């Protein structure tokens, strides 16, 4: 019988403020993206407009990345037993550098400021190197993984993809602004950076997290063992081969492997929807429905990508971007935040021997439902704005309200936590 678990020191659990700072800053970038849409009706006419590049990075490096890093600070200790060394300093440095980097990069891309692009890239890379080094130490200190869960392995694979995404991003920034010589066309580098970011890093992280969070919070059966055993390594392997084919200019290989990546991403969405159909919940709650919508958005984005392979219209890649960034990731992340933040708040109160309020009081259902309704309208407006640009400012207003409301909801949970601590 064991009485101590050397890899799992309670004192190493990050304080609540470590992940919360990321969760509370992230919506500000969503609000900023909304204001950009509001200000520029032509923002969505092409993936290459300065405004589109700025909005993409506000979403991806500002909103998504911040939440993902904050969540990892908590998921690695809780789900993997990998405790960060000095979690608060790591959170402080990473949060400051990534936040400033995302803001600078988005400004640089939107306003055409080379110095801001370079500063943003360097700051982001600095924050990510800090985070990746701390993650590596945490994983090395973790007790060996047991059981059937593939989450620990797939989180590691996602971090590998984040490393490559970061390197590609920095090379791209210097090639674009300082003329760093690269042996490949810039659009090829952009495609590599984008696909490693959304499928390699974002997709693998979403999947690794879903293996735990979907059955846990949505009360579904577990993902099939064979599926979780194969999905992430296969996706990473095909992604690597696809990248090699792209660099070697092998058109047929790229088309075949690219189609296989679409099938793998679609397989994840269909598998998740199948599990959700078998939930033991009598009434699906709002985050459950938001997560389901995010999986439909993922399937929609894959259809748009497929259409972009056979049709030259500028709208298809833009639509795919809208459905991936806002529909899939913002939707799934919002649904997860509504489960993770109240649970973490409750857990920290309980571990501190403070009487914790009911989770429903920490973040009431009616607040969540209202915000998710706005998310759905914003997604619908963005979808239409891709084809009818005059609707872009309306979509922008809805995006501002969506992320503003998300921030207010998260602050509600923080206020309840503060009240309980000081009661």
């Amino acid at each position, binding site marked *: 019988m064991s009485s101590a678990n050397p890899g*799992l020191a309670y004192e190493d659990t990050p304080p609540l403020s470590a992940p919360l700072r990321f969760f509370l800053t992230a919506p500000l970038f969503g609000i900023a993206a909304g204001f950009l849409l509001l200000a520029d009706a032509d923002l969505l006419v092409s993936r290459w407009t300065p405004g589109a590049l700025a909005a993409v990075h506000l979403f991806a490096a500002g909103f998504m990345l911040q939440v993902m890093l904050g969540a990892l600070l908590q998921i690695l200790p809780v789900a*993997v037993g990998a405790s960060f060394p000095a979690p608060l300093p790591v959170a402080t440095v990473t949060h400051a550098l990534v936040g400033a980097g995302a803001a600078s990069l988005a400004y640089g891309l939107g306003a055409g400021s080379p110095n801001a692009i370079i500063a943003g890239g360097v700051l982001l890379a600095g924050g990510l190197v800090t985070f990746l080094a701390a993650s590596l130490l945490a994983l090395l200190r973790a007790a060996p993984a047991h059981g059937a869960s593939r989450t620990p392995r797939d989180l590691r694979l996602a971090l590998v993809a984040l490393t490559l995404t970061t390197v590609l991003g920095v090379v791209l920034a210097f090639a674009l602004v300082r003329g760093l010589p690269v042996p490949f066309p810039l659009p090829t580098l952009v495609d590599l950076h984008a696909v490693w970011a959304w499928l390699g890093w974002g997709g693998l992280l979403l999947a690794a997290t879903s293996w735990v969070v979907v059955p846990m919070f949505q009360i579904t059966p577990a993902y099939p063992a064979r599926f979780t055993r194969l999905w992430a390594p296969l996706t990473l392997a095909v992604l690597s081969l696809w990248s090699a084919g792209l660099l070697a200019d092998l058109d047929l290989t790229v088309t075949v492997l690219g189609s296989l990546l679409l099938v793998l991403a679609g397989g994840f969405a269909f598998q998740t929807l199948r599990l959700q159909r078998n939930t033991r919940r009598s009434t699906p709650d709002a985050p459950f429905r938001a997560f389901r919508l995010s999986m439909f958005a993922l399937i929609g984005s894959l259809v748009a990508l497929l259409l972009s392979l056979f049709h030259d219209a500028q709208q298809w890649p833009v639509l795919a971007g809208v459905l991936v960034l806002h529909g899939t990731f913002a939707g799934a992340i919002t649904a997860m935040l509504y489960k993770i933040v109240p649970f973490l708040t409750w857990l920290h109160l*309980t571990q501190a021997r403070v009487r914790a309020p009911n*989770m429903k009081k920490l973040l009431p259902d009616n607040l969540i439902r209202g915000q998710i309704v706005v998310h759905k309208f914003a997604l619908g407006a963005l979808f239409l704005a891709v084809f009818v640009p005059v609707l872009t400012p309306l979509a922008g207003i809805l995006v501002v309200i969506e992320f503003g409301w998300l921030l207010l909801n998260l602050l509600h949970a923080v206020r309840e936590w503060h009240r309980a601590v000081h009661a």
Partner: protein
Amino acid sequence: MNPRTVDARGLEPPEPFERAMEAIMALQGGDSFTLLLDRMPHPLLRVLDRDGYLHDERFREDGCVEILISRP
């Protein structure tokens, strides 16, 4: 020795944690109980370590986690 089993599988967090803590709080010196969960509860193990409880956990064939928790 208390041979009781607390089955906290298939419940939404934090209910499994709450059920486990209720059973832990009710333990007298020398008592133990078996806890069944869908996954390894790292936060709960930290609390057990901190508060001086003994625990022995293993993965069962069906994938669930079985933890014998004792109060010394």
